[in-house]
Protein backbone atom coordinates (compact mmCIF):
# COMPACT_ATOMS: atom_id res chain seq x y z
CA UNK A 1 0.00 0.00 0.00
CA UNK A 2 1.46 3.35 -0.85
CA UNK A 3 1.75 6.16 1.62
CA UNK A 4 -1.09 7.93 -0.08
CA UNK A 5 -3.70 5.24 -0.13
CA UNK A 6 -2.93 4.54 3.48
CA UNK A 7 -3.45 8.16 4.32
CA UNK A 8 -6.69 8.49 2.53
CA UNK A 9 -8.27 5.28 3.55
CA UNK A 10 -7.30 4.98 7.13
CA UNK A 11 -9.58 7.90 7.86
CA UNK A 12 -12.08 6.40 10.22
CA UNK A 13 -15.00 8.07 11.85
CA UNK A 14 -14.15 6.84 15.30
CA UNK A 15 -10.82 8.58 15.75
CA UNK A 16 -12.16 12.00 14.93
CA UNK A 17 -14.24 12.61 18.00
CA UNK A 18 -13.43 12.29 21.63
CA UNK A 19 -16.13 9.77 22.38
CA UNK A 20 -14.66 7.18 20.14
CA UNK A 21 -15.64 3.58 19.92
CA UNK A 22 -13.07 0.88 20.28
CA UNK A 23 -10.54 -0.19 17.71
CA UNK A 24 -9.71 -3.85 17.49
CA UNK A 25 -7.13 -5.11 15.07
CA UNK A 26 -7.33 -8.65 13.76
CA UNK A 27 -4.15 -10.05 12.28
CA UNK A 28 -5.22 -13.11 10.34
CA UNK A 29 -3.53 -15.68 8.22
CA UNK A 30 -4.76 -15.68 4.67
CA UNK A 31 -5.52 -19.37 4.38
CA UNK A 32 -7.58 -20.26 7.43
CA UNK A 33 -8.77 -17.46 9.62
CA UNK A 34 -9.17 -14.88 6.91
CA UNK A 35 -11.13 -17.38 4.89
CA UNK A 36 -13.07 -18.32 8.03
CA UNK A 37 -13.97 -14.69 8.62
CA UNK A 38 -14.91 -14.41 4.99
CA UNK A 39 -17.20 -17.39 5.10
CA UNK A 40 -18.76 -16.11 8.31
CA UNK A 41 -19.55 -12.94 6.38
CA UNK A 42 -20.91 -14.86 3.42
CA UNK A 43 -23.06 -16.91 5.75
CA UNK A 44 -24.35 -13.62 7.18
CA UNK A 45 -23.36 -14.60 10.71
CA UNK A 46 -23.74 -11.57 12.91
CA UNK A 47 -20.40 -10.29 14.19
CA UNK A 48 -19.11 -7.10 15.78
CA UNK A 49 -18.11 -4.37 13.35
CA UNK A 50 -15.23 -3.03 15.44
CA UNK A 51 -12.64 -5.39 14.05
CA UNK A 52 -10.23 -4.20 11.38
CA UNK A 53 -8.49 -7.04 9.68
CA UNK A 54 -4.92 -7.21 8.53
CA UNK A 55 -4.33 -10.17 6.29
CA UNK A 56 -0.95 -11.88 6.42
CA UNK A 57 0.22 -14.85 4.36
CA UNK A 58 0.74 -16.97 7.47
CA UNK A 59 0.87 -16.49 11.23
CA UNK A 60 4.53 -17.39 10.80
CA UNK A 61 4.92 -13.98 9.19
CA UNK A 62 3.63 -12.21 12.28
CA UNK A 63 6.28 -10.54 14.35
CA UNK A 64 5.09 -9.89 17.92
CA UNK A 65 6.10 -6.32 17.16
CA UNK A 66 3.11 -6.06 14.78
CA UNK A 67 0.75 -6.44 17.69
CA UNK A 68 2.70 -4.04 19.89
CA UNK A 69 2.80 -1.53 17.06
CA UNK A 70 -0.97 -1.76 16.79
CA UNK A 71 -1.26 -1.00 20.51
CA UNK A 72 1.24 1.81 20.18
CA UNK A 73 -0.82 3.27 17.34
CA UNK A 74 -3.90 3.23 19.53
CA UNK A 75 -5.55 -0.16 19.16
CA UNK A 76 -7.70 -1.23 22.09
CA UNK A 77 -7.34 -4.90 21.34
CA UNK A 78 -5.38 -7.18 19.05
CA UNK A 79 -6.61 -10.58 17.95
CA UNK A 80 -4.29 -12.90 16.09
CA UNK A 81 -5.67 -15.96 14.42
CA UNK A 82 -4.34 -18.58 12.04
CA UNK A 83 -4.64 -22.19 10.99
CA UNK A 84 -4.85 -24.83 13.67
CA UNK A 85 -1.48 -26.31 14.53
CA UNK A 86 -0.91 -29.13 12.08
CA UNK A 87 -2.98 -27.46 9.37
CA UNK A 88 -0.60 -24.73 8.28
CA UNK A 89 -0.70 -24.02 4.56
CA UNK A 90 3.06 -23.84 4.71
CA UNK A 91 3.29 -26.95 6.90
CA UNK A 92 4.86 -25.42 9.99
CA UNK A 93 4.58 -21.63 10.02
CA UNK A 94 2.07 -21.58 12.82
CA UNK A 95 4.24 -23.79 15.02
CA UNK A 96 6.84 -21.05 14.99
CA UNK A 97 4.11 -18.49 15.50
CA UNK A 98 2.76 -20.36 18.49
CA UNK A 99 5.99 -19.87 20.42
CA UNK A 100 6.27 -16.20 19.55
CA UNK A 101 2.66 -15.46 20.26
CA UNK A 102 2.71 -17.34 23.52
CA UNK A 103 5.73 -15.32 24.61
CA UNK A 104 3.99 -12.13 23.62
CA UNK A 105 0.82 -13.20 25.40
CA UNK A 106 2.80 -13.73 28.59
CA UNK A 107 4.59 -10.39 28.30
CA UNK A 108 1.59 -8.27 27.39
CA UNK A 109 0.48 -7.67 30.99
CA UNK A 110 3.99 -6.62 31.94
CA UNK A 111 4.00 -4.01 29.22
CA UNK A 112 1.10 -2.27 30.86
CA UNK A 113 -1.61 -3.76 28.66
CA UNK A 114 -4.52 -5.67 30.17
CA UNK A 115 -4.22 -9.35 29.19
CA UNK A 116 -7.81 -9.39 27.87
CA UNK A 117 -6.78 -7.02 25.12
CA UNK A 118 -4.65 -9.61 23.38
CA UNK A 119 -5.54 -13.09 22.24
CA UNK A 120 -4.15 -15.54 19.78
CA UNK A 121 -6.17 -18.44 18.54
CA UNK A 122 -6.78 -20.76 15.62
CA UNK A 123 -9.78 -20.73 13.31
CA UNK A 124 -9.94 -22.79 10.14
CA UNK A 125 -11.55 -21.79 6.86
CA UNK A 126 -14.55 -23.94 7.53
CA UNK A 127 -15.14 -22.73 11.08
CA UNK A 128 -17.26 -19.70 10.33
CA UNK A 129 -19.30 -20.37 13.42
CA UNK A 130 -16.20 -20.56 15.58
CA UNK A 131 -14.93 -17.32 14.04
CA UNK A 132 -18.19 -15.66 15.00
CA UNK A 133 -17.81 -16.87 18.57
CA UNK A 134 -14.16 -15.93 18.87
CA UNK A 135 -14.56 -12.45 17.52
CA UNK A 136 -17.76 -11.76 19.42
CA UNK A 137 -16.24 -12.89 22.67
CA UNK A 138 -12.97 -11.03 22.16
CA UNK A 139 -14.52 -7.78 21.03
CA UNK A 140 -17.03 -8.06 23.85
CA UNK A 141 -14.22 -8.28 26.42
CA UNK A 142 -12.38 -5.35 24.92
CA UNK A 143 -15.59 -3.35 24.88
CA UNK A 144 -16.08 -4.13 28.52
CA UNK A 145 -12.64 -2.71 29.24
CA UNK A 146 -13.39 0.24 27.01
CA UNK A 147 -10.92 2.40 25.15
CA UNK A 148 -7.40 1.99 26.39
CA UNK A 149 -5.89 4.81 28.33
CA UNK A 150 -2.50 4.89 26.80
CA UNK A 151 0.61 5.53 28.73
CA UNK A 152 3.74 3.67 27.76
CA UNK A 153 2.66 1.64 24.75
Amino acid at each position, binding site marked *: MTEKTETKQSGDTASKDGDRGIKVIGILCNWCSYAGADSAGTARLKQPVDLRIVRTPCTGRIDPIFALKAFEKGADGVLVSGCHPGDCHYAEGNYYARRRLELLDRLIPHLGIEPERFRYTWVSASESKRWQEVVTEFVGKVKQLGPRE*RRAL
Partner: protein
Amino acid sequence: MSERQAEIRELAKAALSEGRVDYFIGWGTGYDNSQIVPVFVRDAGEVDELVWNPLAQHNLSVYLKRKMPESPDAKIGVCVKGCDSRTLVSLLQEELVDPEQIYVVGVPCDGVINRRAVEKEFSGEVVDILFDGGRVTATSRDGESKEFSREDLLFDHCRSCRYPNPLYQDDSAGDPVPEPEGEAGPIWESLEEFEALSTDQKSARLEEVFSTCIRCFACIHVCPVCYCWDQCVCRSRKPELVSQKVEAKENLMFQMIHMFHVAGRCPSCGACDRACPVEIPLYLLHRKMNQELHDMLGFEAGVDVEAKPALQTFDVEDPFGEH
Protein backbone atom coordinates in the same frame (compact mmCIF):
# COMPACT_ATOMS: atom_id res chain seq x y z
CA MET B 1 42.69 -13.06 41.08
CA SER B 2 46.15 -12.02 40.03
CA GLU B 3 46.75 -15.66 39.22
CA ARG B 4 44.00 -15.53 36.66
CA GLN B 5 45.44 -12.33 35.31
CA ALA B 6 48.79 -14.04 34.88
CA GLU B 7 47.05 -16.96 33.13
CA ILE B 8 45.27 -14.62 30.74
CA ARG B 9 48.53 -12.90 29.88
CA GLU B 10 50.29 -16.23 29.35
CA LEU B 11 47.59 -17.58 27.05
CA ALA B 12 47.40 -14.31 25.12
CA LYS B 13 51.16 -14.18 24.78
CA ALA B 14 51.33 -17.71 23.45
CA ALA B 15 48.49 -17.16 20.97
CA LEU B 16 49.99 -13.92 19.68
CA SER B 17 53.56 -15.07 19.47
CA GLU B 18 52.60 -18.33 17.79
CA GLY B 19 50.58 -16.36 15.29
CA ARG B 20 47.34 -18.16 16.17
CA VAL B 21 45.55 -14.83 16.51
CA ASP B 22 45.97 -11.42 14.88
CA TYR B 23 44.84 -9.65 17.98
CA PHE B 24 43.65 -10.54 21.44
CA ILE B 25 40.78 -8.84 23.23
CA GLY B 26 40.81 -8.68 26.98
CA TRP B 27 40.30 -6.19 29.76
CA GLY B 28 42.75 -3.48 30.71
CA THR B 29 43.02 -0.40 32.86
CA GLY B 30 41.21 2.69 31.63
CA TYR B 31 42.11 6.30 32.29
CA ASP B 32 42.44 5.63 35.97
CA ASN B 33 42.68 2.70 38.31
CA SER B 34 38.94 2.58 38.90
CA GLN B 35 38.13 1.99 35.25
CA ILE B 36 38.43 -1.24 33.33
CA VAL B 37 38.01 -1.05 29.57
CA PRO B 38 38.22 -3.51 26.69
CA VAL B 39 41.73 -3.61 25.28
CA PHE B 40 42.98 -4.95 21.97
CA VAL B 41 46.45 -6.40 22.18
CA ARG B 42 48.25 -6.81 18.87
CA ASP B 43 51.74 -7.65 20.02
CA ALA B 44 52.91 -10.40 22.35
CA GLY B 45 55.12 -7.80 24.02
CA GLU B 46 52.09 -5.86 25.18
CA VAL B 47 50.18 -8.55 27.02
CA ASP B 48 50.90 -6.82 30.31
CA GLU B 49 48.13 -4.42 29.37
CA LEU B 50 45.73 -7.26 30.15
CA VAL B 51 44.10 -7.06 33.55
CA TRP B 52 41.61 -9.16 35.43
CA ASN B 53 39.67 -7.85 38.40
CA PRO B 54 36.02 -7.59 39.47
CA LEU B 55 35.57 -4.43 37.40
CA ALA B 56 35.89 -6.43 34.18
CA GLN B 57 32.21 -6.07 33.37
CA HIS B 58 32.44 -5.74 29.58
CA ASN B 59 31.11 -8.59 27.53
CA LEU B 60 33.85 -8.81 24.93
CA SER B 61 31.98 -11.17 22.65
CA VAL B 62 30.34 -8.02 21.28
CA TYR B 63 33.49 -7.53 19.23
CA LEU B 64 32.86 -10.80 17.44
CA LYS B 65 29.42 -9.99 16.14
CA ARG B 66 28.79 -9.28 12.52
CA LYS B 67 30.69 -6.29 11.16
CA MET B 68 32.46 -5.67 14.45
CA PRO B 69 35.73 -7.53 13.70
CA GLU B 70 38.01 -4.94 12.22
CA SER B 71 38.90 -7.10 9.31
CA PRO B 72 36.43 -9.80 8.46
CA ASP B 73 38.97 -12.57 8.27
CA ALA B 74 41.06 -11.62 11.28
CA LYS B 75 41.79 -14.37 13.77
CA ILE B 76 40.72 -13.09 17.11
CA GLY B 77 41.57 -14.12 20.63
CA VAL B 78 38.96 -13.16 23.20
CA CYS B 79 38.33 -13.51 26.91
CA VAL B 80 34.90 -14.51 28.11
CA LYS B 81 33.37 -14.83 31.52
CA GLY B 82 30.61 -17.35 32.12
CA CYS B 83 27.83 -14.95 31.15
CA ASP B 84 29.78 -13.67 28.16
CA SER B 85 30.32 -17.20 26.94
CA ARG B 86 26.57 -17.64 26.68
CA THR B 87 26.23 -14.79 24.21
CA LEU B 88 29.10 -16.31 22.28
CA VAL B 89 27.24 -19.61 22.27
CA SER B 90 24.20 -17.80 20.89
CA LEU B 91 26.31 -16.38 18.09
CA LEU B 92 27.78 -19.83 17.40
CA GLN B 93 24.30 -21.37 17.33
CA GLU B 94 23.40 -19.06 14.49
CA GLU B 95 26.72 -19.59 12.75
CA LEU B 96 27.46 -15.90 12.98
CA VAL B 97 30.92 -16.57 14.31
CA ASP B 98 33.27 -19.06 12.77
CA PRO B 99 34.76 -21.11 15.60
CA GLU B 100 37.87 -21.55 13.47
CA GLN B 101 38.43 -17.81 13.49
CA ILE B 102 38.37 -17.35 17.24
CA TYR B 103 40.47 -18.41 20.15
CA VAL B 104 38.46 -18.24 23.33
CA VAL B 105 40.01 -17.90 26.74
CA GLY B 106 37.45 -18.69 29.39
CA VAL B 107 37.79 -16.77 32.61
CA PRO B 108 36.06 -18.35 35.59
CA CYS B 109 34.46 -15.50 37.46
CA ASP B 110 33.04 -14.98 40.90
CA GLY B 111 31.15 -11.86 40.03
CA VAL B 112 31.78 -8.34 38.79
CA ILE B 113 30.98 -5.23 40.76
CA ASN B 114 28.82 -2.29 39.87
CA ARG B 115 31.11 0.71 39.60
CA ARG B 116 28.17 3.09 39.51
CA ALA B 117 27.11 1.81 42.91
CA VAL B 118 30.56 2.63 44.23
CA GLU B 119 30.49 6.10 42.75
CA LYS B 120 27.15 6.78 44.40
CA GLU B 121 28.71 6.23 47.81
CA PHE B 122 30.87 9.31 47.27
CA SER B 123 30.09 12.94 46.61
CA GLY B 124 33.30 13.31 44.62
CA GLU B 125 34.71 11.27 41.77
CA VAL B 126 36.09 7.80 42.42
CA VAL B 127 39.53 7.48 40.88
CA ASP B 128 40.94 4.33 42.40
CA ILE B 129 39.50 0.96 43.32
CA LEU B 130 41.64 -1.75 44.89
CA PHE B 131 40.74 -5.34 45.63
CA ASP B 132 41.97 -7.53 48.39
CA GLY B 133 40.11 -10.80 48.65
CA GLY B 134 36.56 -9.91 49.51
CA ARG B 135 37.40 -6.30 50.40
CA VAL B 136 37.12 -3.39 48.03
CA THR B 137 38.78 -0.08 48.78
CA ALA B 138 37.63 2.90 46.74
CA THR B 139 39.28 6.29 46.86
CA SER B 140 37.91 9.55 45.56
CA ARG B 141 39.82 12.34 43.87
CA ASP B 142 39.81 14.41 47.02
CA GLY B 143 41.44 11.57 48.90
CA GLU B 144 38.47 10.09 50.72
CA SER B 145 38.69 6.29 51.04
CA LYS B 146 35.91 3.85 51.79
CA GLU B 147 35.89 0.10 52.25
CA PHE B 148 33.20 -2.21 50.97
CA SER B 149 32.56 -5.86 50.88
CA ARG B 150 32.77 -7.14 47.32
CA GLU B 151 29.63 -9.13 47.90
CA ASP B 152 27.63 -5.92 48.52
CA LEU B 153 28.73 -4.33 45.27
CA LEU B 154 28.01 -7.23 42.93
CA PHE B 155 25.57 -6.79 40.09
CA ASP B 156 22.22 -8.44 40.63
CA HIS B 157 22.80 -10.89 37.86
CA CYS B 158 26.11 -11.95 39.39
CA ARG B 159 24.44 -12.73 42.68
CA SER B 160 22.11 -15.15 40.99
CA CYS B 161 24.65 -16.38 38.45
CA ARG B 162 24.45 -20.08 37.67
CA TYR B 163 27.20 -20.20 35.09
CA PRO B 164 30.30 -18.70 36.69
CA ASN B 165 32.46 -20.92 34.50
CA PRO B 166 32.46 -20.35 30.75
CA LEU B 167 30.34 -22.78 28.75
CA TYR B 168 32.46 -22.44 25.66
CA GLN B 169 36.21 -21.96 25.64
CA ASP B 170 39.40 -23.18 24.03
CA ASP B 171 41.50 -22.66 27.12
CA SER B 172 40.73 -21.71 30.66
CA ALA B 173 42.51 -19.01 32.62
CA GLY B 174 43.06 -21.07 35.75
CA ASP B 175 40.83 -23.51 37.59
CA PRO B 176 37.08 -23.26 37.52
CA VAL B 177 35.32 -21.58 40.40
CA PRO B 178 32.90 -23.71 42.38
CA GLU B 179 29.54 -24.10 40.69
CA PRO B 180 26.68 -22.67 42.71
CA GLU B 181 24.79 -25.08 44.85
CA GLY B 182 21.09 -25.29 45.37
CA GLU B 183 18.32 -24.93 42.82
CA ALA B 184 18.90 -26.20 39.34
CA GLY B 185 16.77 -23.61 37.59
CA PRO B 186 17.57 -19.96 37.07
CA ILE B 187 16.76 -17.54 39.83
CA TRP B 188 14.59 -14.59 38.94
CA GLU B 189 14.89 -12.29 41.88
CA SER B 190 14.43 -8.57 41.59
CA LEU B 191 11.51 -8.93 39.22
CA GLU B 192 8.96 -9.30 41.99
CA GLU B 193 8.64 -5.63 42.69
CA PHE B 194 7.68 -4.86 39.12
CA GLU B 195 5.50 -7.93 38.78
CA ALA B 196 3.51 -6.93 41.83
CA LEU B 197 2.37 -3.70 40.23
CA SER B 198 -1.04 -3.39 38.62
CA THR B 199 -1.27 -3.13 34.83
CA ASP B 200 -1.83 0.56 35.16
CA GLN B 201 1.07 1.03 37.51
CA LYS B 202 3.30 -0.96 35.19
CA SER B 203 2.32 1.24 32.33
CA ALA B 204 3.04 4.35 34.37
CA ARG B 205 6.37 2.99 35.49
CA LEU B 206 7.40 2.11 31.94
CA GLU B 207 6.37 5.53 30.76
CA GLU B 208 8.39 7.18 33.47
CA VAL B 209 11.47 5.08 32.85
CA PHE B 210 11.39 5.31 29.07
CA SER B 211 10.84 9.02 28.97
CA THR B 212 14.46 9.38 30.05
CA CYS B 213 15.79 7.34 27.11
CA ILE B 214 17.92 9.48 24.82
CA ARG B 215 18.00 6.99 21.94
CA CYS B 216 21.74 6.81 21.85
CA PHE B 217 21.41 3.14 20.88
CA ALA B 218 24.22 2.12 23.22
CA CYS B 219 22.00 -0.76 24.38
CA ILE B 220 21.83 -2.37 20.97
CA HIS B 221 25.36 -1.60 19.94
CA VAL B 222 26.79 -3.12 23.07
CA CYS B 223 24.57 -6.19 22.78
CA PRO B 224 26.52 -9.12 21.38
CA VAL B 225 23.46 -10.86 19.96
CA CYS B 226 21.94 -7.74 18.38
CA TYR B 227 23.85 -7.70 15.12
CA CYS B 228 21.86 -6.13 12.32
CA TRP B 229 23.89 -2.92 12.49
CA ASP B 230 23.09 -0.51 9.74
CA GLN B 231 20.11 -2.59 8.71
CA CYS B 232 18.23 -2.44 12.03
CA VAL B 233 14.52 -2.09 11.43
CA CYS B 234 14.35 0.55 14.14
CA ARG B 235 16.01 2.95 11.69
CA SER B 236 13.75 2.03 8.81
CA ARG B 237 11.28 4.54 7.36
CA LYS B 238 9.31 1.86 5.58
CA PRO B 239 8.01 0.18 7.59
CA GLU B 240 8.31 2.78 10.27
CA LEU B 241 8.10 0.80 13.48
CA VAL B 242 9.78 3.54 15.45
CA SER B 243 9.70 7.14 14.39
CA GLN B 244 12.40 9.70 14.94
CA LYS B 245 10.27 11.35 17.57
CA VAL B 246 11.74 10.91 20.99
CA GLU B 247 9.00 10.14 23.47
CA ALA B 248 8.29 7.40 25.97
CA LYS B 249 6.16 5.19 23.75
CA GLU B 250 8.53 5.41 20.79
CA ASN B 251 11.47 4.70 23.04
CA LEU B 252 9.73 1.69 24.55
CA MET B 253 8.71 0.48 21.11
CA PHE B 254 12.35 0.64 20.08
CA GLN B 255 13.31 -1.39 23.11
CA MET B 256 10.59 -3.94 22.29
CA ILE B 257 12.14 -4.43 18.87
CA HIS B 258 15.43 -5.12 20.53
CA MET B 259 13.84 -7.42 23.08
CA PHE B 260 11.89 -9.55 20.65
CA HIS B 261 14.83 -9.70 18.30
CA VAL B 262 17.05 -11.18 20.96
CA ALA B 263 14.34 -13.40 22.45
CA GLY B 264 15.72 -16.90 22.73
CA ARG B 265 19.26 -15.68 22.18
CA CYS B 266 19.64 -13.27 25.09
CA PRO B 267 21.07 -14.86 28.21
CA SER B 268 20.54 -11.71 30.32
CA CYS B 269 24.22 -10.78 30.36
CA GLY B 270 23.23 -7.27 31.37
CA ALA B 271 25.48 -5.46 28.88
CA CYS B 272 22.62 -3.23 27.70
CA ASP B 273 21.78 -2.23 31.22
CA ARG B 274 25.36 -1.33 32.11
CA ALA B 275 25.85 0.67 28.92
CA CYS B 276 22.73 2.79 29.31
CA PRO B 277 23.90 6.33 30.09
CA VAL B 278 20.59 7.16 31.76
CA GLU B 279 20.40 3.97 33.78
CA ILE B 280 17.23 2.47 32.40
CA PRO B 281 16.93 -0.99 33.98
CA LEU B 282 16.83 -2.76 30.62
CA TYR B 283 18.21 -5.90 32.12
CA LEU B 284 15.01 -6.44 34.09
CA LEU B 285 12.91 -6.42 30.92
CA HIS B 286 15.15 -8.95 29.30
CA ARG B 287 15.14 -11.12 32.36
CA LYS B 288 11.39 -11.05 32.45
CA MET B 289 11.35 -12.27 28.88
CA ASN B 290 13.81 -15.00 29.70
CA GLN B 291 11.80 -16.02 32.71
CA GLU B 292 8.73 -16.47 30.53
CA LEU B 293 10.68 -18.46 27.95
CA HIS B 294 11.93 -20.65 30.73
CA ASP B 295 8.44 -21.19 32.08
CA MET B 296 7.13 -21.94 28.60
CA LEU B 297 9.81 -24.29 27.38
CA GLY B 298 12.31 -24.84 30.16
CA PHE B 299 14.59 -22.97 27.82
CA GLU B 300 17.77 -21.10 28.63
CA ALA B 301 19.60 -19.13 25.98
CA GLY B 302 23.21 -19.75 25.08
CA VAL B 303 23.98 -22.89 27.02
CA ASP B 304 24.39 -25.43 24.24
CA VAL B 305 26.16 -24.76 20.94
CA GLU B 306 24.19 -27.54 19.27
CA ALA B 307 20.80 -26.24 20.37
CA LYS B 308 18.66 -23.85 18.37
CA PRO B 309 17.45 -20.57 19.80
CA ALA B 310 13.95 -21.15 21.18
CA LEU B 311 12.11 -19.00 18.70
CA GLN B 312 13.90 -20.38 15.69
CA THR B 313 12.49 -23.82 16.14
CA PHE B 314 9.37 -25.54 17.45
CA ASP B 315 8.00 -28.70 18.87
CA VAL B 316 4.72 -30.05 17.52
CA GLU B 317 3.86 -30.90 21.12
CA ASP B 318 4.56 -27.45 22.55
CA PRO B 319 2.39 -27.36 25.65
CA PHE B 320 0.62 -24.06 25.10
CA GLY B 321 -1.73 -22.32 22.75
CA GLU B 322 -5.38 -23.11 22.16
CA HIS B 323 -6.35 -26.24 20.34
